[in-house]
């Protein structure tokens, strides 16, 4: 698969703050990537660097295996960052015409893209009169003008109401279905889980995980167990049992994380033979949220 973007040992320091720390990952054509991290983890800075608005401190990044300069590559990219930035005194059409002039594409796409994001009726209103959701949709229309090979979105649903969030997500999924590569930065986990196929988790500028969403979520799962009395003995028995990696208490339940496949009946019969009768036993897969918190809480 063609590599669109590749980052190698990227660093960015703002004075004493190490915003991006030795970050490396590749973006392959056709996938939907999520960059996941808490607020202030360096997501936007990373995107700023690859989009040439933030200067890197050290390291490298290359577009299309270095076959294109960043300036050339940006013409094949559609990007929106944090907040939609347009000229407030221009209408939607005028703003998009300007973007067309900058990207060097004809005006013919404007109408189509405005219809895609449902802004065609408001095309002659000034940008300053738009609601945040409309501004965000205009930003997406603008990013789509050159039919980009890769779409970069930084917190696209930030500050929107539930309906606005839903609209943007539907839009992103539709775009992803057309085969456009997407790089989506977000601190909203369900957003990434719902939209992305791959994920890069960063915290304080350091990469914690990179791989598919399925792999990240896929572990052997965990058990929730509860007994009415004698939980000390239960813990003792579970610790001895092969296949259980760790045990922790959560409210009145025990959570046992597995390191090999194990069925509920196996563990149930083992405990029953040792004189423990469970009042509650559930096998679950961890959600992305749990995995994310596990990852970002370490160290």
């Amino acid at each position, binding site marked *: 698969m063609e590599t669109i973007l590749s980052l190698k040992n990227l660093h960015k320091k703002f004075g004493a703050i190490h915003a991006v720390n030795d970050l490396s990952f590749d973006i392959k054509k056709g996938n939907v990537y999520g960059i996941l991290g808490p607020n202030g983890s360096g997501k936007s800075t990373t995107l*700023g660097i690859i*989009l*040439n608005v933030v*200067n890197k401190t050290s390291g490298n990044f290359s577009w299309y295996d270095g076959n294109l300069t960043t300036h050339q590559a*940006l013409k094949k990219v559609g*990007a929106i960052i944090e907040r939609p*930035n347009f*000229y407030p005194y221009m209408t939607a059409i005028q703003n998009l015409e300007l973007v067309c002039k900058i990207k*060097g594409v004809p005006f013919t796409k404007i109408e189509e893209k405005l219809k895609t994001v449902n802004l065609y009726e408001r095309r002659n209103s000034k940008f300053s009169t738009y609601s945040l959701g409309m501004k965000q949709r205009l930003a997406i229309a603008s990013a789509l003008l050159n039919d980009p090979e890769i779409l970069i979105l930084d917190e696209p649903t930030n500050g929107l109401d539930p309906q606005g969030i839903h609209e943007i997500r539907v839009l992103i999924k539709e775009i992803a279905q057309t085969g456009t590569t997407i790089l989506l930065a977000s601190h909203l986990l369900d957003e990434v889980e719902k939209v992305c196929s791959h994920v890069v988790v960063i915290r304080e500028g350091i990469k914690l995980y990179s791989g598919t969403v399925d792999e990240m979520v896929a572990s052997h799962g965990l058990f929730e167990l509860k007994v009415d009395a004698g939980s000390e003995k239960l813990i003792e028995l579970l610790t001895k049992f092969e296949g259980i990696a760790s045990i922790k208490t959560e409210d009145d339940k025990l959570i046992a994380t597995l390191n090999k496949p194990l069925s509920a009946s196996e563990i149930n019969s083992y405990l029953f033979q040792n004189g423990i009768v469970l009042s509650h036993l559930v096998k679950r897969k961890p959600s992305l949220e749990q995995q994310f918190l596990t990852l970002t809480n370490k160290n």
Partner: protein
Amino acid sequence: MLRLLNIEIHKLKHNRASRVLVFIYFVLLTSIALIAAIKFDIGPVKFHLADQGIFNFPYIWHFNTYIASILKFFLLLVIVSMMANEYSNKTLKQNLIDGLSKKEFVLSKFYTVILLALISAVFVFFVSMILGYSYSDFTELSIVTTDLEYLVAFFVKLVAFFSFGLFLGILVKRSAFAVGAMLVWAMIEGFAKGMLYWKFEENVANVMQFFPLEAMSNLIKEPFTRLGAVKTVAKQVGEDLSKDFSVQPKDIIIVLIWTAIFIYASYVLLKKRDL
């Protein structure tokens, strides 16, 4: 180049504030012609300014470019705000992401500066031609085309002045502060001039000519003492006002160097900054 100019004009033409300022500027340029209407008619004293020779070729080139360059502050506001607004609207960041390089961004502004200066020079040329042919005592082609270097000086002066404004716009990112910074700089130059006169008394002009604003104002020297009527009066009170009023190539070179410095510094500043 045309693409960059086209992008910048698109930004300007849809901005009402810029349109109004540019419009006022050209109306004021035209209003130079109103000076012709200054007439005193008090009994025996008849005074008509247009008859005093200010619209005589080739003097008119000097006079009109000097007056017109006072109006450059209107366009300065347009230039400074077109730069500073890119920061306050964050559209600079968006432009770069959309695929404009930092170099192209600075160039698009610089081309606009050149275009505005060029239009001003052409405009002043036509206003002067019309006024000159209406009031001048001499309209022979050889006299009309004398001293046209004042128009060149006018153009160079505007380009340099606006480039300075562009640089300040990028440096301080706010239009009001950028105009303020320009005034502060003018005061610094004035202060430096005063200090030099006080300390050294002589050769001050040799040093001051290298300061940007001083160099720009040296391009077109004040035209009033050159006027025949003023000279006559001065002669009667025993003053000799004869000095060199012509445009000095050395001044043009100094101003061009400053223009290059301002534009290059704008680019370096933009390149170094994280947006």
